């Protein structure tokens, strides 16, 4: 499997999931890189027991969950590669509000809604999270309602 193709196909999705979880552009960029380093390292051991995308999203979301271990921001000196300082693009107001609404959700719900917004089928989300497929639909429905309610509260509907 070609890492370059995998990277180009999934980097945007992985970045958005990190952004949804962390609501910090710089941290999300660093975590995206860390996730792809893990994918590159684990690629030879991928046994194709699950879909490639399921495997990638499992690694990505597990890394997001692990970010809890870094109570402070990851020090840049421990990063594998010092990326060039990139001018942080300002996030559009509505998008910033969306990230804010997602950030107010508990961690697992942040992950689930990010996967929903990536348009992943419920069966795949269940495989990534480890839910019983029957519970997934109810949980997703509840989180969607919670998010739209928050979005409404911040006056973004209309």
């Amino acid at each position, binding site marked *: 499997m070609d890492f370059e193709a995998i990277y180009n196909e999934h*980097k945007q999705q992985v970045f958005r999931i990190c952004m949804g979880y962390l609501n910090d552009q710089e941290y999300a960029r660093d975590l995206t890189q860390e996730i792809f380093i893990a994918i590159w390292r684990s690629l030879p051991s991928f*046994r194709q027991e699950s879909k490639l995308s399921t495997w990638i999203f499992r690694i990505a979301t597990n890394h997001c969950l692990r970010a809890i271990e870094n109570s402070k921001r990851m020090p840049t000196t421990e990063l594998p590669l010092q990326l060039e300082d990139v001018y942080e693009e300002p996030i559009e107001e509505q998008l910033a509000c969306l990230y804010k609404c997602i950030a107010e959700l508990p961690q697992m719900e942040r992950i689930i809604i990010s996967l929903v917004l990536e348009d992943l089928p419920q069966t795949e989300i269940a495989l990534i999270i480890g839910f019983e497929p029957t519970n997934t639909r109810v949980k997703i429905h509840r989180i969607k309602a919670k998010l739209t309610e928050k979005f409404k509260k911040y006056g973004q509907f209309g």
Partner: protein
Amino acid sequence: MDNLDNIRLLWVSARTSMLPEPDAVIMAARKYKNAALFRTVRLLAYAFILTLLLITLWCYTNPKMISTSIGEGFLLLAVLILIGTNLNTLHRFYYTRDLNNTEFIAFLKKTHERQLFYHSRTQVLGLCCTTVGILLYLFETANQHAAGLAIYIAVLIFLIVLWLFIRPAVFKKQSAKLQLLIKQMENLASQIN
């Protein structure tokens, strides 16, 4: 904006132009892998050299007191504990599990519990072996020369400081951090159930 489809459109509009090129990620991955591996391999190499040195000393020196041989035995045991722990780390470095989030949270919780066990038991056992080993090993030298006695007293003072001040402070800090992480994992697990 009136439904989830529109939120989805907003979601995918996030800019990702700041992400590095694949070559840069591969280069970073290689550097990271080598650096992480190098640290563990270097520690293991030192431990193996120390083991060889201890075995050589055992074979070629002729200690008059039994305490010297027993001391060497304890030091060897301490080094073996260090090697065992680090070989385990090396194994974990190569063995990547394909786990879903639920399994991963359980795995992280177990890992933190094991780290806590390591700090409270294995590390103490290693330190005990080192302390007893050094004190017994140097006892013969301390008996023979004044300089040896001075070294023995200095080592003894260091070991007292280590056991009474350094080790409890480090353990308290590590233990608090690990217990917090275990609690956080329990909180994550409760969000799934």
